[in-house]
């Protein structure tokens, strides 16, 4: 099974550590940021796709990753949206939109309680 993990920050690192327990799971990671906790910690060497998952990039990322399952492991503050009011609601709505648009199962593992 191919699992696409979105986010290689602290939350993504936790997810990746767990997924490593089962070598049969093929993991693909995506994160647009340059400094990544999961890389710094040596959990992964590098991210496979330097891209953020949004409704606009969904098709491209999925074509590249061909996942059977997607895990959203990127906290709101890591989305690079700044601190404007309503950003939390926007981030939640973006995740909901991705979940609805995706043809493969998408599971959120980092939804921050507002």
């Amino acid at each position: 099974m191919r699992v696409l993990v979105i986010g290689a920050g602290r939350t993504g690192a936790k997810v990746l550590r767990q997924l490593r327990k089962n070598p049969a799971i093929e993991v693909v990671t995506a994160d647009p940021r340059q400094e990544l906790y999961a890389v710094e910690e040596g959990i992964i060497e590098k991210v496979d796709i330097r891209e953020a998952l949004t409704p606009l990039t969904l098709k491209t990322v999925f074509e590249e990753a061909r996942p059977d399952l997607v895990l959203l492991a990127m906290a709101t503050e890591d989305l690079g949206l700044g601190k404007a009011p309503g950003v939390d609601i926007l981030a939640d709505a973006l995740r909901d939109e991705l979940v609805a648009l995706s043809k493969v199962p998408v599971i959120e593992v980092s939804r921050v309680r507002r």
Partner: protein
Amino acid sequence: MPENHIRSRDYLDGSLGVEAQARAEAHLAHCPHCRRRVERLQARRARGSGGAAARILGRFALSLLRGELTIVEPLMANLRLKKGEAPAAEAEPLSPLRVLRPRVVGGVRNLWRFLGRFGLVLVLTGAVLLLPTPEGLSAAGHRGLAAFIFTAAILALEPVSLPIAALMVPVAQVALGVATAPQSFETFSRPVVFLILASLFLAEALRKHGLSRRLALATIVASGGGIGPLLLGIMGISAFFSMWVGNTATTAMLIPVALTISRQIPDKEDAREMLALLALGIAYSASLGGMVTILGAAANAVASGFLAEIMDWTFLDWMKYGLPSFLVVFPLTWVLLFKLMPVAVARLDVEPAREQVNGMGKMSSVEREILLVLTVTACLWVGGPFFETLLGLPQSLFSAAMVAVMAVSYMAIREIIDWEDLKGISWGIFLIIGAGLSLGEALSRTGVTDWFATLIGPLVTGPSLLLTLIVLVMVSALLTNLMNNTTIAAVFVPVLIALARDNPALDPVQLVLPVTLATTFGYSLPSASGRMALMASTGMVGRGTMMRYGLIMTIASSLSLAVLFYLLARFHLI
């Protein structure tokens, strides 16, 4: 995607990282624009300290007014449509965006700047106190004027976040001797404050159960795919929601839907244009929808609070003027936006949206129940007093705030929302409205509003009503780009009420409503409202675009609003 020029000051200061410095040098090799800027800065520094003091002072003053420079990694940098483009992380950071919000205090320099901003608030307040008491103003009024300056300065300069700045307002009033503690806090418990809070709770129910998305997608399907109807549809939904729930929350909920629509366009630039058009449409209409009801905006709540003090003022009374204003300005905004921001695509396929709607299945019982509750609530908001009389119920049982609290209670009992959901709402609005009302009360109590009214009376009552309305509305609309809407309402409304009281030819509603409604038209800067800050921080709309179209919209909307209220007054409909 705008070209990512280097920041010449950082480059010359050597404050960029090693990699960023190398990238900047590579960029300079082929960018004459940046080379010129670097050379100019180098030359300026080489000229030495001539006029340095003035420059430093000027820069300091500008930084106080400008607020935090938030370096935002715009969403658009991550929203690439095609494979093979440069990764976002490798792109140069875009220019900083101007977002008025408190800066994080870290390090001596930042601490000094923080104190500088708060210090300026204190200096301005102290300066007013030290001035001789203006003619016609009592000693208490003089201190009230200082309280006004403190409030206006602290809410405009925001040395701390807005809700905390609002909390300081009662403290300042008591310290200046213009109110006792019970007087200064009394306004925080006004019904209108709870009405706004409850509307935020209702918004949370909409968000939590995805009703806004379903309705937005259904509207897109109904539009048939033509860009004009599609824009109208999404603007209509945005306006409709923001009549009843928070404007910024509405915008945030609908932006992803705009992204979904734009993703159908294969060409990157065309998609970007479409996204900017839809995003601005959503933001503008979220603001405009807020004109219709008392709970549409905090400024409306503050103005209603003051009007309720001098006359019988209900939810329906506000709608009588708010709805016609919306019906005039909303279509105008749609037409202007559609004409000013043409997109390359003439029609979009609505099939994907239809698939999404079908994929969501039938409306769940919870969604239906929420819609029912909102409908009943809206009916009671409008016709509450009528039903009270008809059913012989205790007075004010169906007042707007009570109805809103009952709706929230019902939803909680039915477990549609729970306390955990409500923890995340913008509770700060409660403090901001309370502070706005508290300031207005203090100004009235100390005679400052009467004094202001005497001062500006000849200017307002001298020229024709149309000219007066145009000037007042324009000032309010342009000021709202820089100042908090609630503060504008808190300061202007008591003065306008005093003006109307002294002039039998004027009705308070004639002046208060257009000035308050005009605070909706802050479209030009990120600091104008939460919606515009969101547009800026996501990078969907550039600052130039925001400023250009925002100004046009502000002027056109202000003029039409002023003319509408002039006609209403002329035909004795106010």
